[in-house]
């Protein structure tokens, strides 16, 4: 039942989420792919063009930030799994003692 409930909640969130336009649409210029135009516009939205060195520094900062955030999320998941592992080990030991 829990799986069905989760799937239902997911469907409820996901399908409206598909129809919402959250990010701005990119417009490709002649000779430029849609992807490049979109990525550039998304990166620079509302800001004046920066020198190439500053853009590269910004890009590196964003990459480090994203990596740090994902590592923090991973630490949370790893801690949860490690604690769960310990709890199951303790339960297994208790069960073995009860059987003896």
């Amino acid at each position, binding site marked *: *039942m829990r*799986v*069905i409930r989760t*799937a239902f909640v*997911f469907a409820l969130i*996901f399908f409206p*989420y*598909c*129809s*919402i336009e*959250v*990010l701005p*649409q*990119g417009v490709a210029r002649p000779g430029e*792919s*849609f*992807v*490049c135009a*979109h*990525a550039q516009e*998304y990166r620079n939205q509302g800001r004046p063009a920066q020198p190439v060195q500053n853009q590269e520094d910004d*890009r590196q900062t*964003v*990459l*480090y930030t*994203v*990596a740090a955030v*994902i*590592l923090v999320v*991973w630490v949370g998941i*790893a801690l949860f*799994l*490690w604690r*769960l*592992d310990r709890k*199951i080990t303790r*339960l*297994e030991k208790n*069960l073995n003692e*009860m*059987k003896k």
Partner: protein
Amino acid sequence: MTILTRGVIKSFYILMPLAIIMAFLWAPSAAVLGDFSRIIYFHVPLAWVSVLAFLVSGVLSVAYLMDKKKRYRWLDEKSYNSASIGLAFAILTVITGSLWAKLTWGSFWNWDPRETSVVLILLIYIAYFSLRSGLSGNEQRGVIGSSYLILAMIMLPFFVFLAPRIYDSLHPATIINADKRIYLDGRMRMTLLVSVLAFSSLYAYIFHLMNRMLSVKKATEDLHAGD
């Protein structure tokens, strides 16, 4: 459990941070897609591991139906565990894929053949969970659920490998393609490999924990029944 098996399962603790660091700080960005392409190191392994989990659930179901003397315990429930992990990974694949689709194709959902086939796979496995919960208390639950999982496993290659290649797809064929060449930079390929191994070990670890919880639950029930 042998030390080797334990090492493989717990390698998740080392492989996952390594994969994250490689994905963001070591691998180059793709030529056309830019830094958005880094989501490939999470999207593709999630998809592969979900297929692996569904295959494991199918194989365990075959073993359950063939094991007439019941030498192996709770195979149907282990296949259920594997299918539930596969479903969770498939949902994460859809979420990462739709984010990537928004950034590269301009829309979260495009009804691309591969997207459509993933929706069908999700529906098939959600139906399995409905079927199984509807049969609680039924003696034939294991047999019916396992038969369903085998049928789902037989259909899986069609949805994963054939359908997206029969029809024109927005998805690129960089790894499995007609040229039989991998169109990925060496560092990108290495990062993808490490990421696939990391997610596979995560799957193995969660599956192992779920099976241990199942054993504890069954042993407790046996103890109470004995009292």
